[in-house]
């Protein structure tokens, strides 16, 4: 059934947005982290996603039906590369010689916007999925008594 392609496309979009939410939550959780996994400061991360190679191809079983295969995929999760936020806290164990502590350069407002955008995009994927499902169920109603 060619509706499975629509489901797979929506599913790939949901996977990407889910990862975006995970990464944004990780950034928010580490807003006050002074030590990262490698001992250095935590670097804010961002998800780079791209379109999966979309192509129309003819089904093997039905020559007249065209199918669209593709979707979205995560290309990479990379560090944003913003300068750390320096706060003067001489008593902090991670303070440098001048008494400054390097907090990650995370902007909570930007992170919240990314979070909301990811959530809305996820919802849009669910809406597209539900539309495909409704269409399939409507097709099954063809010739019915209702």
């Amino acid at each position, binding site marked *: *059934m060619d*509706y*499975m392609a629509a*489901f*797979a496309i*929506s*599913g790939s979009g*949901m*996977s990407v947005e*889910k990862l975006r939410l995970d990464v944004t939550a990780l950034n928010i959780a580490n807003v006050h982290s002074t030590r990262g996994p490698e001992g250095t400061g935590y670097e804010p991360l961002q998800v780079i996603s791209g379109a999966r190679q979309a192509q129309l191809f003819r089904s093997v079983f039905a020559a007249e039906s065209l199918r669209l295969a593709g979707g979205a995929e995560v290309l990479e999760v990379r560090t944003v590369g913003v300068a750390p936020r320096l706060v003067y806290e001489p008593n902090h164990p991670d303070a440098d010689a001048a008494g400054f502590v390097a907090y990650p350069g995370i902007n909570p407002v930007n992170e919240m916007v990314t979070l909301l955008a990811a959530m809305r995009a996820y919802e849009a994927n*669910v809406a597209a*999925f539900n539309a495909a*499902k409704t269409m*399939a*169920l409507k097709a*099954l109603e063809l*010739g019915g008594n209702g």
Partner: protein
Amino acid sequence: MNIDTSTLLPAVAGTRLTPTADAGAGAGAGALGFAQWLERSLAETNTRLIAADQQVQRLALGETDNLHHVMIALEEAKLSFQLMVQVRNKLLEAYQDILRMQV
């Protein structure tokens, strides 16, 4: 005014509603084809139901990474099953129509 539709719609002109010679010869093979299609579709539906079941099991065990993959598998299984139910309804309807036929 005489309008020749075959020249206006070349795509329609090529189609024939009457069965051609090769279509008549392949009628036996066509009946077998439907049985094969039904068998394959039933097997496919069964596979989807089993896959959905396994996904739910993995979700319960905490092994799955994405909730929406489970839901998509469930929806696919549901849709396949409903298609099968509709095919069965149509078949039964046709059979009962024939059964009610006056001889």
